[in-house]
């Protein structure tokens, strides 16, 4: 149980770290990385949770979820990367324009 708790704590840490970076970092690539780190945090918790069954045989459901989650995260990242390129192409910098929420 303690190991699971440790994993969960690390997962939460990653999630928060990612969230912080997502808000603070201006560079779009860093924002995408931040999102990915948050995702990793969640996946870490999921993987650790598979140990919840008694007798040492891992629960397959969280594993299935992680795999699906990773697939989704990869495609989302791919889309995000293309869009970063497009934004950079049109504005010359990989950041949001300065005037916020206009």
């Amino acid at each position, binding site marked *: 149980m303690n190991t699971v708790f440790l994993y969960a704590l690390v997962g939460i840490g990653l*999630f928060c770290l990612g*969230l912080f970076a*997502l808000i603070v970092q201006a560079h*779009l690539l860093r*924002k995408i990385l931040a*999102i990915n780190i*948050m*995702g990793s945090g*969640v996946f870490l*918790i*999921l993987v650790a*949770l598979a140990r*919840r069954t008694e007798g040492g045989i891992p629960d397959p*459901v*969280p594993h299935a*979820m992680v795999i*699906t*989650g990773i697939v*989704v995260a990869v*495609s*989302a990242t791919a*889309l*995000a990367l293309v*869009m*970063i390129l*497009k*934004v950079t192409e*049109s*504005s010359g910098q990989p950041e*949001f*324009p300065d005037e916020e*929420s*206009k």
Partner: protein
Amino acid sequence: MGITFIDFPWAIALILLPLTGGLSCFLWPSVSKILGLVTVIGVMLSATGLGWLVIDKGVYHYLVGGWGAPLGIELYVDGLSLLMLMVTALVALGVSIYSIHYFELSYQRRFWPLWLFLLTALNALFLSADIFNLYVTLELMGLAAVALATLTGSHDAFTAAMRYLLATLLGSLAFLFGVVLLYHSFGSLDIAVLSERFESNITAWAAFGLISAGLVLKTALFPMHFWLPPAHANAPAPVSAVLSALVVKASFYILLRLWLEIFSQLDTDVDILFGFLGSIAIIWGSLQALRQTRIKLLVAYSTVAQVGYLFLAFPLAEKVGVTAWSAAVYLILSHALAKSAMFLAAGNLLRFGGHDRIADLDRVAQRLPITVAAFALAGVSIMGLPPSGGFISKWLLLQSALVQSQWGLVGVMLIGGVLAAAYIFKVLGRAFTQAPLPHEPGVVPATMEWAALLLAGGAILLGFFASEILAIIEIGSPFGAGEVKL
């Protein structure tokens, strides 16, 4: 085979049809227009078939491949999801008819696959019976929606879509985190099972917080609406229509579903917070809409305001559950039709004048009468004037608020209605006048005008079939049985 009409797995068709349709459009782009239209008509028929089935026989379960929970995927349809599916099909039909002549050839091939994938995700979302599938469909929907929002290819569109993407990814991740915590505590992903096992503990609270925050962000409730107006206003007209009409509603649907089935067991005051934020959204969104000088931005801010009304149902539902929830669902339906009609009409005005500046509209009332009629009829529903679906939902909401003397909410609803009239007639007043600088009008194909009017007419017609639709909402009593009805 002996499969009768009623046994046909319409629910599966609702997912597989647009999925294969989308893939085919991708593979054979030259015929994507026809493929897309045929697919959407098929979806419409399937939704009708499913509707027949559910109205006839009640709640519908389907175990995909014969495997039930916890291993297999289960589909579930009650009155609430049925109505969401039907309104999705209807809006999809209108938007697809519109798109035939809206996009140039090179854009057709990009639009149809994405749009059909989005439709797949929406249908799958409304059919899902477990929270992990909800996550997957939510994410699929978000990605397709973001990709569609970039279709105009302008700088503004890309920046807006990038914001939208970050917001939607963040929202989904928070939701996923919540899902993980729920699974950890209660060992199931099935909503019905969770509903039974759920009990209040610290993990449940954390899950509730994460899921609500994620979904509220995706639904664009004030103050998390920042991404919505630019994304919706800079997308191509049919995409704006779908984003405002369906995509925003899908995340609200999940929130509603989980709140009803699971989280209402928590003893929280979040409903009051939702009501409060909803009220601010109504006033602030309407004022912002009133300030806008461009039609599409005005319509987008109007969505922010209308989303606020949806959240008013939470504080009201504590005492008069069924009435308040029915009002919210009715608002989802009528707003979906009205707002899509409004965006399509705005697209026509943009095509016609080459711009969407309100002050420079040039006698469009006589030159594009059908478009202006569509905008006006949709406006009637948005303002909540009779006869329209918007009126029915406003009536029910007001009734719920007055019965429990919630004067603050009553005031907000009335002020919101007056402000809505102000921003809608700001546009309509200019429809009759001449612009200072006349210009060469663009050609607007008749299908684009009639598609907008079809949807607006639907929003008006909803005002005449309230009894029937309210009866459908209660199939499977998604709002709980035995509650006091007004």
